C-alpha cells in the first residue's frame, strides 16, 4: 500500500495544478494599471462638431473634468460585436443614475458610432473619439469592450476586460462604486 502513496501524492499535486490552470481564463491579463492614476488625455467629444475649433466649450473631454467624482470609462466601438452583448447592461446602469458613464469610442468612424448609438440607445453621459487608438494604448486596451472604474482621486480601481455582464455589474461594480462614493 505504502508504495502507492508517493505516486498518488504526485498525481494529486499535478491534478490540482492542472485544475487551477484549466479554470483560469487566459485572455484575462491582470492590468498593472489598477491602483494607478488614470492616464490623462484630451479628446474630442463624439457629439461635437469635428470642424469646431479646439478651444470650443464642450467640444472635448479630459479625465480632469471628472475630478472629485467616481466615474466609469467604457471602451466601445460600433464594429465591436461583444459591445452589443454588453450594451443592455450599460443601459440599465445608466438608468440607475449613480455615476457618470463616459464612452471611449475606440478606432471607429464617427458616422458609424453615431448610427450605433441612435440604433441601440445611448447610455453614455458623453462619448469621446479615440480615432487612432492612442489613448487606448495608454489605458492598456487590447480587447474591446473594456470598462474602468475610476475614483474621486482619479485612480483606476477596477478594470473589466470583455463585456460587463449583469452579474459583474451587481456583484462587483455597483458595490465598488457605493464604497468609493462614501
Amino acid at each position, binding site marked *: 500500500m505504502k508504495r502507492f502513496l508517493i505516486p498518488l501524492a504526485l498525481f494529486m499535486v499535478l491534478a490540482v495544478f492542472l485544475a487551477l490552470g484549466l479554470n483560469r481564463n*487566459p*485572455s484575462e*491579463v*491582470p*492590468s*498593472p*494599471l489598477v491602483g494607478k492614476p488614470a492616464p490623462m488625455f484630451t479628446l474630442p467629444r463624439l457629439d461635437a462638431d469635428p470642424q469646431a475649433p479646439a478651444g470650443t466649450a464642450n467640444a472635448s473631454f479630459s479625465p480632469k473634468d471628472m475630478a472629485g467624482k467616481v466615474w466609469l470609462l467604457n471602451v466601445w466601438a460600433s464594429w465591436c460585436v461583444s459591445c452589443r452583448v454588453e450594451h443592455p447592461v450599460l443601459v440599465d446602469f445608466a438608468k440607475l443614475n449613480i455615476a457618470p458613464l463616459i464612452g471611449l469610442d475606440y*478606432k471607429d468612424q464617427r458616422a458609424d458610432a453615431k448610427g450605433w448609438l441612435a440604433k441601440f440607445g445611448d447610455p453614455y453621459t458623453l462619448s469621446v473619439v479615440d480615432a*487612432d*487608438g*492612442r489613448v*487606448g*494604448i*495608454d*489605458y*492598456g*486596451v*487590447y*480587447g474591446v469592450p473594456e470598462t474602468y472604474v475610476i475614483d474621486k482621486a482619479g485612480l483606476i480601481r477596477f478594470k473589466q476586460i470583455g463585456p460587463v455582464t449583469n452579474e459583474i455589474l451587481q456583484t462587483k461594480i455597483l458595490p465598488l462604486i457605493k464604497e468609493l462614493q462614501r
Partner: protein
Amino acid sequence: MSRAGFVLSLSLALALQLASAPARANEAAPLADDPVVEQRLLVIAEEVRCLVCQNESLAGSRADLAQDLRREIRSLIKQGKTDKEVMDFLVSRYGDYVRYRPPVKPSTWLLWGGPFVLLAAGLAALVLFVRRRRGTSAALSPEEQREAAALLGEKS
C-alpha cells in the same frame, strides 16, 4: 481550357498583377523608412507578446492592435528612447504578461527555479534508489539458486 482561353486568362492575371503593383509598393513604404529603426523595432517586437492573439509575437502579428503598437514603438525609438524604456512603456500598460521573458522576482521564482528544483529532486531520487539497490546483496539464496537453475535447465 482552350489554348486561346489559357493565354487570355494568363494575360489578364498579368495585367491585374501590374495594376496592383503600385498599391503594394505603397504599403511597403514604412518598412524601408529607416532600416535602423526597423531593426530595433524587430528586436523589441520579437520579445513582446501580441495581446490579441497571445501565441504570436508583436513582430509577427497582423492584428490591428499589434500594428498600432509597432507604430507606437517606432515613434518611441525615433524619440531616442532606449530599448529598456520602450519595454517599460509596454509593461506599464499591459503588465509583465506582454514579455516572453518574464522578469525574475518573488512571484516568478517558482517559474524560473521550478525546473531546476524538479531536476534536483529527480537526481536525489535516482541517487537514493541506486544506493539502496547497491546495499542489497546481489547474491542469490540457495533456494533462488535452485529455482534459477531449474528455469535455465528448462530452456536448454
